[in-house]
């Protein structure tokens, strides 16, 4: 080990709270990769009680300088095209009731601050767990008497991103207690279930092997704090459920439908795995 490696190893060690990480990299850590996680230059958040992770790390720190730069600059971030659409829709009257979001919720910055960070949330009236997309569509159908937006439509993505962006920088803060508890447990079971022909669970990649390359992809903790996220591969803003479908498919498993109860439960469990991470919406990923 060279002097430089040792210094970096120490830095990684002190952040990660262990030497295991360092050992698995060997001397390659000496070459700066430009990827903060690999260079040992990333921020962590303390994991919530009972978490299987020793520290929480946003997917941001696993990405290249080019990708991070796109996220860092609102003018370059391609997701802002959808965000602008969301802003416009906020005050657009639609539906039988003759209302817009703004008629009831007024100033978005005030009314939606922190809201996106707390979803999915238990919904009294229906007795179900609902995510932000579903909450927005409830307001469309019930409060506005308008058609719900289709899943993955520009409208629903734009509004979801716009609402969640009002929590940018605030810590993810979901409730997993009381009526949310049974949904949380189901989401947890989903996370650890091996599936598909390749017989892998979410945990196989995102808990046990984060920080390592799987062919050309650097595995992160699979956190959800940046969603909806602009993916360079998609050339589009995309929902968390779209990402779930992709991660299910790549192990040759049958995915669930966008908005399915299974994915909303998983969404809650995953949000808790990132409890305290700053909301980044709209993030940019490779």
């Amino acid at each position, binding site marked *: 080990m060279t002097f430089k490696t040792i210094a970096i190893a120490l830095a990684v060690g002190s952040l990660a709270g262990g030497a295991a990480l360092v050992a698995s990299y060997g001397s390659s850590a000496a070459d700066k990769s430009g990827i903060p996680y690999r260079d040992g230059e990333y921020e962590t958040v303390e994991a919530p009680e009972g978490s299987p992770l020793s520290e929480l790390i946003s997917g941001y720190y696993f990405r290249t300088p080019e990708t991070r730069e796109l996220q860092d600059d609102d003018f370059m971030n391609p997701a802002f095209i959808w965000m602008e659409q969301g802003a416009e829709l906020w005050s657009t009257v639609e539906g039988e009731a003759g209302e817009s979001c703004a008629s009831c919720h007024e100033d978005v910055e005030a009314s939606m601050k922190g809201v996106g960070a707390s979803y999915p949330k238990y919904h009294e009236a229906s007795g179900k767990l609902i995510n932000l997309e579903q909450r927005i569509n409830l307001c469309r159908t019930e409060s506005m008497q308008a058609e719900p937006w289709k899943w993955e439509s520009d409208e629903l993505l734009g509004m979801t991103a716009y609402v969640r962006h009002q929590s940018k920088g605030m810590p993810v803060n979901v409730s997993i207690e009381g009526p949310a508890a049974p949904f949380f447990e189901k989401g947890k079971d989903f996370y650890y279930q091996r*599936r*598909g*022909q390749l017989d892998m669970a979410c945990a196989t*990649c995102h808990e046990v092997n984060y920080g390592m*390359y*799987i*062919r050309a992809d650097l595995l992160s903790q699979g956190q959800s704090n940046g969603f909806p996220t602009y993916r360079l591969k998609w050339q589009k803003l995309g929902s968390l459920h779209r990402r779930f479908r992709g991660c*299910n498919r790549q192990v*040759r498993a049958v995915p669930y439908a966008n908005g399915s109860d299974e994915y909303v439960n998983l969404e809650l469990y995953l949000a808790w795995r990132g409890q305290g991470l700053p909301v980044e919406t709209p993030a940019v990923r490779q």
Partner: protein
Amino acid sequence: MDRKLLSAVAAVGFVSVAAVSAPQAPKAEELVAYTVVDYAIPEPLTGEPGDPERGRAVAINRQLGNCLSCHAMPIPEQPFHGETGPALHGVGDRLSEAQLRLQVVNSHEINPMSMMPPFYAVEGRHRVAENFEGKPILSAQQVEDVVAYLKTLKE
């Protein structure tokens, strides 16, 4: 080789002749029976000896072995080698042919927590995509080809 095994081998042979374009993912078929002895499978799954050249191609192919997604291997022309499994340089010295066979056939029989997919086992899978239901990732012959290739990895 017992009769049951022979007839299974014959069935496999038939399927691969029927398949038109190569390289092909295996068809749903009755899997060749095998016996595990001391964390190893001493008997080959097929009568045809494994071909290391074909095995190397299977290891690279993303639709088949995709071994490179997790292992560094002495395959310099391929750019991205994964890191989640151990490097396979010299694995032909470290493990016997029989051990290599079980590792590829069903890693979970060696380490139930293994990340490595069982390549020739279909039991207990959850929600497998329709195209792949009831099928192993590799055919018996592809397993033998990969094992033959791994045997060549000497330091």
